[in-house]
């Protein structure tokens, strides 16, 4: 039980990742694939954020200091703040996510213009028909 409680974030991340992955490769609707892609990437972000967490009084990674916000050098301790590195990485990952999302949607529109559908099996059917004629 301890095993499950101590890592419940990780279990949720695995579940989300499997859901996203499932949608990406099994779903027939292309838009659903894109949704799955989004869920997949978000789950990944959850994984990274979870690695940075510190329990035991650590706070957000912004220095608590004087009126200007700056702290006296040497007074900061790693134990007091949450690890900022995963956050940085994930900011990048979110950007990548939205960029991929945008391109995928643009492709979706192109595909719809061409085939008038975004169901994969119907598209394959159209392609097969066109290959014969």
């Amino acid at each position, binding site marked *: 039980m301890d095993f499950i409680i101590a890592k419940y974030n990780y279990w949720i991340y695995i579940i989300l990742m499997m859901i996203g992955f499932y949608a990406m490769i099994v779903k027939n609707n292309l838009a659903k694939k894109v949704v799955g892609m989004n869920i997949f990437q978000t789950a990944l972000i959850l994984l990274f954020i979870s690695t940075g967490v510190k329990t035991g009084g650590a706070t*957000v990674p*912004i220095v608590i200091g004087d009126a200007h*916000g700056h702290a006296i050098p040497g007074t900061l301790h790693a134990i007091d703040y949450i690890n900022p590195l995963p956050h940085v990485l994930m*900011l990048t990952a979110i*950007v990548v996510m939205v960029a991929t999302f*945008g391109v995928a*949607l*643009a492709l979706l*529109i192109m595909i719809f*213009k061409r085939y008038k559908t975004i169901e994969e099996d119907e598209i394959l059917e159209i392609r097969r028909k066109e290959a014969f004629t």
Partner: protein
Amino acid sequence: MIRRHEDIIIESLARFLTPFIQAFALYVLFLGHYSPGGGFQGGVLMGASFILLVIAYDIIEGKRRITEKFNIVLNATGVMVFSGTGLLCLILGGEFLDYSQLAAILPVGPEEARGLGILAVEIGVEITVAAIMVSIFLDLASAGEHEEALK
């Protein structure tokens, strides 16, 4: 294609909100050093303000506010500011993106120069993100038919 519905409440609300969102976007950008936020979040907000206008009015209005060529220039300018800052550092004799070199041309010490360098690149990020968000939205919302939208 987004059509205009001439709904006075939505239109005036959007027009009313836009400056506030933009101000907040700038706030997020400049306070990025001291609080959550920074170029990326600010940029998305900035972009969102234009997107709001476009949704409330239509693409024609949106393109009146931010013309296509201006958008194109902004797109590239942001990344250019970022990499240009880096290149400036390189020209000043340091490594690429070594902002402490900016102290040579700014009246501050290397640490503060780094802080200012961060601000500079955050501005670059903000510009690009804002412009690109608008650009992607316009492309998606019009399915690429800007010209038709303008007719």
